[in-house]
């Protein structure tokens, strides 16, 4: 009787240990709030990435997009002893104390898409690589105009740091011998205002009658240019590409004014986050600059220095939206 009791206790103990070690492999993502289509895609990508590695994914989002609601969720995740928390922050600083608690409980914490304070995260998963954005946009323009002709850039404000970074990489790409017949005639600034972007586009068309393509790496600019080119019936004469919201650009992609444009894919952002999570837990990476890891179907990644003083992983080339896939995406974001 006593023996069987001891046996039972031992079996129970072993089962508990097995169970806890199993559950120690659950990976959580906390998005900003529920009912956000962009966030649903991101969480779906995270889930796919975690589940294809045979782990359990926990998808959480508060009903209100506030930091205090995220704090409560993170506390629950700490009590569940998850292996890692991937946070899409509602506030840069407010989550620092609770994320610190998570870290001291041995949980690997990192941010995704919307970053948190570098002191509260091991690394950050960012959408797109500035160099690749510059290269991709110039290549797109090159393909659209058949490798020859004048192009112009319609930017936001002249002080926007991300815009200027992308434009400088575009200019760098244009110095390659491949582009010797492509001439960048002007960088115009629409200040991310719809009416100013429209008049700047009209100005470009007047000043450069032989203009073949406009690159607008800003969602406001690219939509404004799309409208001008559509209204003036310049489809097929002046091409348009850039970084745009599928929902705003669907009309111009479907009518052919903009053959294709780019933005990052939220599913891939989440998917990359899944592999960052497992690599951090396995110890393959620690979140330091230069750490390398493999992210399933997306290939290999290296952690780099982030502008905010922490480290980050960049998703890579932006996602291409064209006539074939725009119908699926225009309702998403």
């Amino acid at each position, binding site marked *: 009787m006593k023996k069987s009791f001891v046996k039972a206790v031992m079996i129970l103990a072993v089962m508990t240990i097995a169970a806890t070690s199993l559950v120690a492999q659950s990976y959580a993502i906390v998005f900003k709030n*529920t009912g956000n289509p962009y966030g649903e895609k991101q969480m779906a990508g995270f889930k796919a990435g975690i589940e294809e590695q045979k782990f359990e994914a926990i998808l959480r989002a508060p009903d209100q997009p506030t930091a205090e609601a995220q704090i409560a969720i993170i506390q629950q995740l700490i*009590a569940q002893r998850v292996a890692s928390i991937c946070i899409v922050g509602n506030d840069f600083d407010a989550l620092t*104390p609770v994320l610190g608690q998570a870290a001291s409980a041995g949980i690997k914490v990192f941010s995704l898409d919307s970053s948190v304070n570098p002191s509260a995260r091991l690394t950050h998963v960012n959408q797109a690589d500035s160099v690749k954005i510059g290269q991709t946009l110039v290549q797109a323009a090159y393909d659209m105009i058949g490798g020859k002709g004048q192009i112009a850039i319609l930017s936001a404000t002249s002080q926007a740091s991300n815009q200027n970074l992308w434009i400088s990489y575009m200019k760098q790409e244009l110095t390659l011998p491949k582009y010797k017949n492509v001439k960048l005639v002007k960088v115009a600034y629409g200040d991310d205002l719809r009416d100013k972007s429209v008049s700047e586009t009209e100005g470009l068309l007047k000043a450069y009658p032989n203009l073949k393509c406009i690159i607008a790496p800003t969602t406001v600019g690219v939509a404004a240019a799309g409208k001008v080119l559509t209204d003036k019936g310049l489809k097929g004469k002046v091409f348009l590409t850039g970084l745009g919201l599928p929902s705003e650009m669907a009309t111009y992609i479907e009518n052919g004014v903009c053959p294709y444009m780019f933005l990052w894919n939220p599913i891939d952002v989440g998917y990359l986050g899944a592999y960052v999570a497992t690599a951090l837990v396995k110890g393959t990476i620690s979140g330091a600059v230069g750490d390398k890891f493999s992210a399933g179907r997306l290939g290999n990644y290296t952690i780099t220095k982030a502008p905010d003083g922490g480290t980050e992983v960049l998703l890579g080339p932006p996602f291409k939206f064209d006539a074939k896939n725009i119908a699926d995406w225009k309702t998403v974001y």
Partner: protein
Amino acid sequence: MSERSISVDRPRSLRRFFFQWEWLLVLIFIAVNLINSSLSRYYLNLRSLVGSTNSFLDMAFLVLPMTFVIILGNIDISVASTVALSAVVMAVSFNAGLPMPLAAILCLVVGTACGLLNGLIMIKFKELSAVIVTLATMIIYRGIAYVILEDQASGHFPKWYSFLAWGSIGPVPLILIVFAACAIAFGLLLHKTSFGRKVFAMGNNLTAARYSGIRTDSVIVAVSALTGLMAGFTSLFLSSRMGSTRPNVALGYELSVIAMVVLGGVSTAGGSGRIGGPILAVFIIGYLNYGLGLVNTTANVLLIIIGSLLILSVLVLNVRFGGHRRPAPPGARVIAPGKAPDEKA
């Protein structure tokens, strides 16, 4: 006053003692805990059970004065905006160079002032109902907070300040100790002082209370100011927990707080209720949130459950206890001669 009391005390019996809403709440509380612990193996862990209180207790400071407000037959929907405004003023004045202890006191002062203003408007313009007055100030206070901070966050509080919300004495979080002290103080104030009796009397029949010599205006102003002060407390703990503040903090707190008070068995018609009910309701909803969070239920399911509990509580109170006409505590029977005890003003 005493010669005006009409004693309708029924003899205390065991049956009546157990036939109280609070016992049903205790049962719900036990049920919530049983369900939670069967759902998640991580639930029954004393350390995290006690520790998790810091995620819902900041709101509980508002439940205490709201109980007074609702017993008075009023309502205050401006509390969350008061929290936001006092937190924003504190953060901004601290970052402008005010020492943190003074900034914290300023936070309480701003909260009290907001409550005081609510009360003054209510007694000056009696034709306005409390819900309209506080609806207006709800918009105004949050509006001022937005004007001050403009959608930005403000913080960088000193390290020691985070102890308020995150610190604990032994295994017990500081916030739980402070809340227990406040709960006892409010319980004594409501059930053991003449002030509490006046609140019940006014909730039962305002006109009668006034004719029996209660200075009703000062009671209303005092309760409003007390509500503001407790909003200041909430704001201290909330901004300490977040390490920073924004104009949109505590969004929607007013409805959760009112829900807890009503679930706690306080009649929205005024005049009846006990402090123990709302306090139990705080822990029921808090642990329900925590437990369902542990099994990763989505936020929307939680809202449905809390809503259902609320309807259930109102139904049971009305059907089982006969439309809130259960006897209020003895002190509440201070009414003018000639008026029926349960007649509403």
